[in-house]
C-alpha cells in the first residue's frame, strides 16, 4: 500500500540533510538533539512496522538496540574491528535475536505478547547490567567513533548527516517495501489474519519477518548510538526507552512511517525546547502529548497525508507533472 505523506516526509528529510550540511558550528546543540532524534526514528520505524503492519506489540524493543550497541561497541573497543564490520555484526545479531523472539511471539497476542517482550527487554537489561564484559551498571566507555572507508566521523555535523542518511535510506526502503505485494499482504494480515491465511498468505512467515526487520533496525540504531555517544550504560536501554518509542509510534500514527519520522523529531526536540520551564517540563510535555493525540487521533501521519494532497493539488496548478500511480494518493 502506498503510504500517505511520503512526499511531505521527503521534504522533511531534505530539510534535515540540508540543515546538517550548512549549519554553522554554533548550532551544535540542535544538531546533537536532532541526531538523537534520527536514532530514535530508525528504531521507531521498525516498531511501527511491527505494531502498525502486523499488529504485534513490543515493550522490549530497545533490548535489540542494546544488543546492537554493546556488540558493536565491544567489537570496536576490545577487538578493534573496523566500524563497518562491527556495525553489521551488531545489527545482524540483533536481527537473529529477533528471529528467536519473533518465533515465540507467534503463539502470543495482545497483552501476553506485551508481557513476553517486556520480559525480553528485562532480560537484556539484566544481562548488560550484571555481566562483567559489558561493564556492569557503569557501562562501556571509550567506544571508538563511527567511520566509513577509513573516514572517521568526528564532527557533530558528520555524525548528524550519517545518522539521517541512514534514517532516510531506512524510511525509503520501508516505504518501498510497503508499496509492494508484501506490503499488501501485511495490510491483509493486520486487518484480518484468518482471511489472509484463507487466501494463501503465510501469516506466520510474514509476522516473523517483520519482527526480524524491526529487531534489525533497532540493532542498527543501537550500533550507531554506541559510537555516536562514545559510551553506553544499561540505563540507556531500560523500559522507559521502550515506552518512549511506543509513544513516538502512537503520536506518529499506527502504520504511518512518515508520521513516525516527524513524531521522532518533534518528541525529541520538544522537551529540549521546554528546558526554560524547568519544573513544569514533565507536565508541559505530558500536556503536549495529550494535545497532539486529541488534535490528531490518526497521528501526525494524518497531517502529512493532508500536506501531500495540498502538494499534489499545487503541482496540478503549476505546470509540474507528478508521476503518480492512480492508487498512490487515492483512498487505499
Amino acid at each position: 500500500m502506498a503510504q500517505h505523506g511520503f512526499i511531505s516526509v521527503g521534504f522533511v528529510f531534505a530539510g534535515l540533510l540540508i540543515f546538517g550540511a550548512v549549519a554553522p558550528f554554533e548550532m551544535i546543540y540542535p544538531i546533537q538533539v536532532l541526531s538523537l532524534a534520527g536514532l530514535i526514528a530508525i528504531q521507531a520505524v521498525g516498531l511501527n512496522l511491527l505494531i502498525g503492519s502486523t499488529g504485534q506489540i513490543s515493550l522490549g524493543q530497545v533490548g535489540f538496540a542494546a544488543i546492537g550497541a554493546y556488540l558493536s561497541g565491544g567489537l570496536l573497543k576490545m577487538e578493534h574491528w573496523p566500524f563497518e564490520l562491527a556495525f553489521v555484526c551488531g545489527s545482524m545479531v540483533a536481527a537473529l535475536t529477533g528471529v528467536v523472539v519473533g518465533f515465540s511471539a507467534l503463539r502470543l497476542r495482545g497483552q501476553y505478547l506485551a508481557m513476553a517482550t517486556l520480559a525480553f527487554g528485562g532480560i537484556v537489561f539484566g544481562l548488560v547490567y550484571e555481566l562483567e564484559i559489558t561493564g556492569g551498571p557503569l557501562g562501556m566507555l571509550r567506544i571508538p567513533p563511527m567511520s566509513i572507508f577509513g573516514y572517521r566521523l568526528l564532527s557533530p555535523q558528520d555524525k548528524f548527516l550519517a545518522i539521517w542518511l541512514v534514517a532516510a535510506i531506512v524510511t525509503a526502503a520501508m516505504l518501498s517495501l510497503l508499496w509492494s505485494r508484501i506490503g499488501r499482504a501485511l495490510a491483509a494480515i493486520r486487518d484480518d489474519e484468518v482471511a489472509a491465511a484463507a487466501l494463501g498468505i503465510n501469516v506466520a512467515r510474514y509476522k516473523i519477518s517483520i519482527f526480524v526487520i524491526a529487531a534489525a533496525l533497532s540493532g542498527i540504531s543501537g550500533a550507531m548510538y554506541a559510537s555516536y555517544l562514545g559510551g553506553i550504560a544499561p540505563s540507556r536501554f531500560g523500559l522507559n526507552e521502550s515506552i518512549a518509542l511506543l509513544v513516538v509510534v502512537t503520536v506518529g500514527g499506527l502504520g504511518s512511517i512518515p508520521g513516525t519520522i516527524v513524531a521522532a523529531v518533534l518528541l525529541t526536540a520538544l522537551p529540549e525546547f521546554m528546558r526554560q520551564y524547568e519544573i513544569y517540563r514533565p507536565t508541559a510535555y505530558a500536556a503536549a502529548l495529550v494535545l497532539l493525540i486529541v488534535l490528531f487521533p490518526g497521528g501526525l501521519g494524518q497531517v502529512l497525508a493532508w500536506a501531500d494532497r495540498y502538494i499534489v493539488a499545487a503541482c496540478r496548478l503549476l505546470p509540474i507533472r507528478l508521476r503518480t500511480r492512480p492508487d498512490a494518493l487515492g483512498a487505499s
Partner: protein
Amino acid sequence: MTAAAEQVVIRCVGVSRQFGGLRALANVSFEVARDTITALIGPNGAGKTTLFNLISGLDRADAGRIEVHGQAIDGMQAHAIVHSLRLVRTFQSARLYSKLTVADNVRLGRHVRSRSGFLSSTLKLPAARREERDITGQAMRWLDFVGLGHRANAVAGTLSYGDQRLVEIARALATEPRCLLLDEPGAGLNAQETNALANLIRAIRALPMTVLLIEHKMDMVMAISDQVTVLNFGEVIASGSPGAVQRDARVIEAYLGKGEHHSGSD
C-alpha cells in the same frame, strides 16, 4: 485408483469435530466429483461451515480423514492448502478488506501465485515490477469475469453487499484454484442478483472448476447443482442428485419437521 482419485476432488471419510459438549460433525463421509457443482445444504447449525473450516485448514478434525486431489490434508496449514492443493474458500460474511480498494482486494488473491521477496520488492527490481503488472492484469481479468471491472478503484467497503460477495469470489478465483468453496454466496441477495449469481457459478464450473457450495436458497441449489449433500445435526442424512434429495423422506423431515407434509419444496 489414480483414475478414481482424479475424479474425486474432495473426499471426507468419517470426519468428526466436537466443540466441548457440542457434536458439530459426526462421522461425515462424502465426495465431491471433479468439475461439478456440489451443494452442501442443511438447517442452521447442521455443521456446514464447520466442515468448510476443516477442508480449508482453518480448523482440525478430531477424527476422520479429508483428502483433496487424493492427498490427505491433516496437519496442512490453511495457506499451504491454497498454495499447493489449489483449494480456496469464501466466507459466510464476505471477508473483504473494506478499507482497501476493490482492485487491491483482488490483487491480494494473486499473492499466493507471485514470489517477489523482501529484497526485490524493496528495490523494485525489474522482475518485481513485471510481477506487479501481472498481478494487476490478472486481478482486472477476474474482476471483469464477475462483472465488476468498472469498480476497481472503489473502496471495497462502499460496494453493495451483493457486489462485495462478487469481489470476494473474484479474489478467490485470482488464487488460481482448481476447487472453490463458496459459503452461502446467495445470502442477502435479491432475486435478480441471485439469478446472476447462479449464472456466474455455472460459468465458474465451465472454467473448468470444481465448486462446493453451502446455500440456503433452495431454488438456486436445485437449479445449478449436479450433486446435493444434506447435513443435519452434524450427520450426512442424504446425498444424491437434486431431484432424489428433494424426495428423500429424512430430508423433508429435517426441513419441515415430523408430521403431515406433501412435498419438499422450499
